[in-house]
């Protein structure tokens, strides 16, 4: 387009004014007390700025509105998150229940003033005072999203969904007539012992297990027994979700505990894979955004904590990651993919889920319980065939 000479000056004036206003906008909107940066340790896929898929971006708007430039450090395991937070240079962390109490006990995270988070009241009431982030009535974080550890199965082998975790714990024939030996997997982490305890809650009610993370000595021995019995049937203790997915595709593994993430990925590859929460219920993860004890950018951190509860974050992150929102109203919000993510990710299963928390020596149900360090040592022995 050729601009007539007389109009040229005007065009320049208008466009520069526009540029100027665009440049000024974030600066005006920014709270004068915001520090300008914010660093977050997160699970991969939790903090997206549209780099993987343009439609999934809940960082850019936050940065524009608050002037807090977000940097994300992703971590693959809870242990990695704990060790990153031990370094002390991050503002926020999206910790699962098996990490959150360790972070609180290690004084790596600080308490949260919920009065500074107006959206707190929108949170799921069942999460507001959850024991994995609330200690003695003090809140150490803001619930983010949650999900179950589902029973993933090969739908070609199981015409109808298995109804019990017994398919991975007890020797038996599967619907195709062949034994389950060598075709099931267990998780390579001591927290998996809670899955066995959960199964025993129903299978052996006489043990009186109330909480799979709070076991007394005799209950603990029963859990060890069932895991020892399970060991010879295990194809592989899975550790890496990629390896597990390839085992379901290539190694003849047909049923195992898994995350909804693997189920979604395998279904996207058109594999005959489905998942279920069996009658006993399931263990699960509920992640909490926590603030580092020596966070350098507390103002920006509080701004993010508030932002993280808005529908604009909760809906897309739930759809993207295969999770359920911590804010129930977000179920009604439209996610970029337009799916009914709360239904597909099992939002209504909440009451059936025993959320991960670190087993501790002092516990509510028995007074003293078997601590996580013993779980780890004994699970190592069991995986080694002892």
């Amino acid at each position, binding site marked *: 387009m050729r601009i007539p000479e007389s109009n040229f000056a005007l065009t320049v004036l208008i466009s520069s004014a526009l540029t100027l206003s665009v440049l000024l906008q974030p600066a005006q909107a920014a709270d004068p007390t915001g520090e300008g940066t914010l660093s977050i340790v997160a699970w991969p896929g939790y903090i997206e700025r549209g780099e993987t898929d343009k439609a999934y971006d809940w960082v850019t708007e936050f940065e524009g509105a608050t002037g807090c430039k977000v940097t994300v450090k992703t971590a693959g395991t809870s242990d990695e998150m704990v060790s990153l937070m031990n370094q002390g240079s991050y503002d926020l962390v999206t910790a699962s229940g098996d990490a959150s109490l360790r972070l609180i006990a290690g004084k790596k995270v600080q308490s949260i003033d919920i009065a500074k988070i107006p959206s707190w009241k929108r949170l799921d009431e069942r999460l507001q005072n959850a024991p994995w982030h609330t200690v003695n009535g003090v809140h150490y974080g803001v619930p983010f999203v949650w999900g179950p550890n589902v029973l993933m199965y090969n739908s070609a082998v199981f015409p109808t969904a298995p109804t019990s975790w017994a398919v991975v714990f007890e020797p038996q024939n599967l619907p195709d007539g062949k034994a389950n030996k060598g075709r099931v997997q267990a998780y390579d982490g001591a927290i998996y012992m809670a899955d066995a305890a959960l199964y025993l809650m129903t299978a052996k009610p006489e043990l009186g297990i109330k909480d799979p993370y709070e076991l007394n000595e005799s209950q603990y021995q029963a859990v060890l027994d069932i895991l020892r019995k399970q060991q010879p049937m295990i194809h592989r203790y899975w550790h*890496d979700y990629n390896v597990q997915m390839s085992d379901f595709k*290539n*190694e003849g593994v047909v049923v195992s505990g898994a995350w909804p993430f693997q189920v979604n990925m395998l279904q996207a590859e058109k594999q005959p894979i489905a998942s279920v929460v069996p009658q006993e219920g399931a263990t699960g993860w509920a992640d909490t955004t926590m603030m580092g004890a020596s966070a350098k950018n507390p103002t920006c951190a509080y701004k993010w904590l508030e932002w993280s509860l808005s529908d604009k974050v909760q809906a897309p992150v739930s759809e993207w990651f295969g999770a359920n929102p911590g804010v129930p109203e977000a179920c009604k919000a439209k996610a970029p993919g337009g799916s009914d993510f709360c239904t597909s990710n099992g939002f209504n299963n909440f009451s059936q889920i025993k959320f991960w928390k670190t087993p501790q020596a002092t516990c509510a149900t028995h007074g003293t319980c078997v601590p996580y360090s013993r779980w780890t040592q004994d699970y190592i022995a069991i995986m*080694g*065939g002892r």
Partner: protein
Amino acid sequence: MTHATADTNLPRHFSTYLYRHGTLYLLLLLTPPLLWFGIVYLGSLFALLIQSFYTFDDFSMTVLPRFTLKNYQGLFAAANLDIVLRTFSMAASVSVFCACLGFPIAYYMARYATGWQRGFFYIAVLLPMWASYIVKAYSWTVILAKGGIVYWFIDKAGLTPLIEALLDIPFLGGNTLSTSHLGRFLVFSYIWLPFMILPIQASIERINPNLLAASADLGARPSQTFTTVLLPLATPGVIAGSIFTFCLTFGDFIIPTLVGPSGLFIGTMVYTQQGAIGNIPMAAAFTVVPIIVIGLYLIFAKRMGAFDAL
């Protein structure tokens, strides 16, 4: 002009000064590497040793700086001893296998390969090391999988009963190739073989070919020449190579997580102890095991005269 000459002579003056003061010269030369060695290397080793005597409190799951021998006693618990023996036997068998496989290749490289062949062999041996080690370990999980190429080949060759029988052998087998000890052994051998070939090749290259000719001239059979001349002279290379393969297998934690049956290795145990429960004292005690085992091995190798030819 005289002024300028003095300036250009300054480095010369300095070097003359250093030449006259030998001790200072030596000190300047050695201080940086000694500091590196002393602080970074020995310092961290010492810190590790100290940590291995600390107390880990099961109840609070914290490390207390109270000295105890409990961690070392813990090493002898049945489950932990299993881990040490499991790692040790894998490291030993991988080293022996790599030596048997590597020696002929190294011999050919040193004695027969000339010109472009030499270059080809060097690149062929080193080529696998150009790719990331994690990528290679991952790809082996696919290669060894039930739907993978190895099983396809075995199936086409009609050897399925053979492999099933092989996988049923305790301490060797497992559910499938990729979850068996055998599979893990293959991957370890594949990954570390170059570290065995190159030192052996270097040691064979140093052997005077006349010695082998003299042995033959004096009536030794080829096997006698091999056992009495070639092998003893090449032993330093074999030992050097085996130290690589042994140590690398002993400390590895990536291959055991990706390939092979359940049951931890020392590397994965250290990772779990310090990562999952923060039991750094126990992890440190486990780390001391390879140090002691390798130390004993080196003493044994010296007794065998492995370093005489160096």
